[in-house]
């Protein structure tokens, strides 16, 4: 098992390097000079040049062949990419160009917000999606099955930004049950430990804060959970149906096992393999979907922040935010692979 994990870690490394490379490329290729963008159209050439120098924007992207032609081998490697990688290794993501706040500082606050939302949404998607899938599979070709399957297909087809708007209209504007946006009400304080408000309020036994934070997270989490919920329900159903056709299910029944033991002990563990994979992949959708959900619900997470960064050509923000999202995604899928091996002995032993 530990050998398997080590092997997986090594196979992730090239992907991580590739990701950092692509992120680097993207921010440099976005048209428009950030120095000009920062200083405005009317800045003097001199001040623009000084700023470019300061951010290293005047260096070549990868290799400086002119330096090399002059015999300067150190200068040859002193490029934007090398500087970027060096800084990444010490977790230095620079400052935002416009506001001059260190990216890492903002990440510490915004990242937990997105993670809290995404994990809460995934939690909802799993605890609703999997039972729906199991019930559908167990009642194949009955009205229950058709209704839940068409229902989950509607979920999959949902434009989540629209669903979010409809939720706001119904629950916040018309019924006024839940707040329309934000993470917490003005005046409610939660002592920050992890910056996951739900966790922090429980840790500090701050029940007022917990209630307020829960009320704020429900609507965005439901909007975000809709698509993964539908996908998980459908995947659970089809993989349960596949497994229920297997010979070993017949063996289990021939042993005299009851319906529920066959379903939950013998079928579910086998059927959970593809479901686990899909959950991992959906984490990516959640993190990306956060861009939209965060926009609608004024949720102070990284999705919206990166989006603004892209539009404002704020390289360090784009770099830091995208990197964190991509790394979380890779991390989740790495975890899924480990889970897979844990669930399936055939992978563990080969």
């Amino acid at each position: 098992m530990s050998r398997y994990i080590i092997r997986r870690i090594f196979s992730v490394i090239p992907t991580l390097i590739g990701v950092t490379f692509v992120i680097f490329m993207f921010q440099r290729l976005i048209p428009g000079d950030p120095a000009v963008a920062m200083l405005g159209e009317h800045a003097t050439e001199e001040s623009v040049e000084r700023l470019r120098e300061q951010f290293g924007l005047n260096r070549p992207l990868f290799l400086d062949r002119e330096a090399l032609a002059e015999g300067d081998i150190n200068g040859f490697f002193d490029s934007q990419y090398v500087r970027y990688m060096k800084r990444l290794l010490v977790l230095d993501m620079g400052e935002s160009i416009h506001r001059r706040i260190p990216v890492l500082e903002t990440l510490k606050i915004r990242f937990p917000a997105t993670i809290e939302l995404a994990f809460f949404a995934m939690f909802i998607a799993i605890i609703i999606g999997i039972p729906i899938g199991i019930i559908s599979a167990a009642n194949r070709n009955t009205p229950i099955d058709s209704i839940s399957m068409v229902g989950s297909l509607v979920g999959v087809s949902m434009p989540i930004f629209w669903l979010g708007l409809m939720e706001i209209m119904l629950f916040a504007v018309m019924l006024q049950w839940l707040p329309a946006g934000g993470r917490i009400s003005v005046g409610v304080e939660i002592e920050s430990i992890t910056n996951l408000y739900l966790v922090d309020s429980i840790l500090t036994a701050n029940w007022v804060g917990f209630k307020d934070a829960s009320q704020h997270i429900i609507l965005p989490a439901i909007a975000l959970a809709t698509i993964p919920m539908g996908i998980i329900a459908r995947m659970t159903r089809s993989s349960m149906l596949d497994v229920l056709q297997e010979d070993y299910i017949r063996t289990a029944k021939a042993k005299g096992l009851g319906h529920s033991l066959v379903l939950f002990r013998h079928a579910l563990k086998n059927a959970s393999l593809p479901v686990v994979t899909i959950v991992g992949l959906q984490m990516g959708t959640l993190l990306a979907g956060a861009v939209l959900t965060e926009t609608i619900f004024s949720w102070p997470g990284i999705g919206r922040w990166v989006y603004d960064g892209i539009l404002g050509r704020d390289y360090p923000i784009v770099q830091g935010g995208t990197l964190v999202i991509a790394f979380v995604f890779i991390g989740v899928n790495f975890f899924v692979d480990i889970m897979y091996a844990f669930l399936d002995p055939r992978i563990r032993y080969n």
Partner: protein
Amino acid sequence: MTPLLEIKNLKTRFFTSEGVVKAVNNVSYSMESGEILGVVGESGCGKSVHALSIMQLVQDPPGKITNGEVWLDGKDLLTFSEKEMKKIRGSDVAMIFQDPMTSLNPVFTVGFQIVEALRLHNDMTKAEARERAGELLALVGIPGAEQRLDDYPHQFSGGMRQRAMIAMGLSCEPKLLIADEPTTALDVTIQAQIVDLVKKLQDDLGMAIMWITHDLGVIAEMADRINVMYAGAIIESGNVRNIYKKTRHPYTMGLLGSLPRLDEDPGAELLSVPGLPPDLLALPKGCAFAARCGYRTEKCLEEKPPLEEIDGREHAVACWHWEEIAGSK
């Protein structure tokens, strides 16, 4: 004395979108305790479905037992509730299946799967069940049985998996063991080992065995009696001697004719049964075998022959022309 198993007019149907598949048609027979019964026929002749019907494991939908009685030890299983049936399965009647590769659950250890069966029907602690499971694996000839309890099925070879399946089947000392083509998926040498193992276990434990196969060669050396099935019905039934030496049904003759024999002229041609079995969606009015039969007459196409006892109790055949066949031999 009542027989161990008595089946009366069993009918199983599959209701598919294409129509009703008549998989088992009016099957009736009985089995005594400790007897070995061979059930022979081509694939798709209903031999497996009839066995699953006894266990009430026919996939529903689309399958359904539409008629009949299955008496086991004087109780009609078809009147049992699912809950009562659960107690019968695995304890009174156990079943082992064709493909040992897919019949064991890949995500549980072999030991767990045997222990599960043991604890389901017996009042045993985990430790007791585990010890018994080790004994069972040793009984079916798996070397180092104790250690192998913690292995997963994929760590076993095909023959060993079938041995483990047999151990699981025997775990609660069933009165009847149904073996559904247990050797078909195995190499010939392994096949022989499994056959020997089952014979030995039967000598020791004395349970009745229903051995389902399409291979008349395997069954000849172990069965007491044989049922030959065709298109969901028994068309010839009797003790081994009668089936092999006094064959009365043209289909059985065809099956035997297609077996190579060492004791005959090696130059003799192997016979084969021409054509294909009938479509179970649309069975002919008369004899189901008529289309492929060399003895066919008008009557065969018009009327279905009943399964009649001939030559005394030990032989029955469903053919209008069995007497001609007896004469022509």
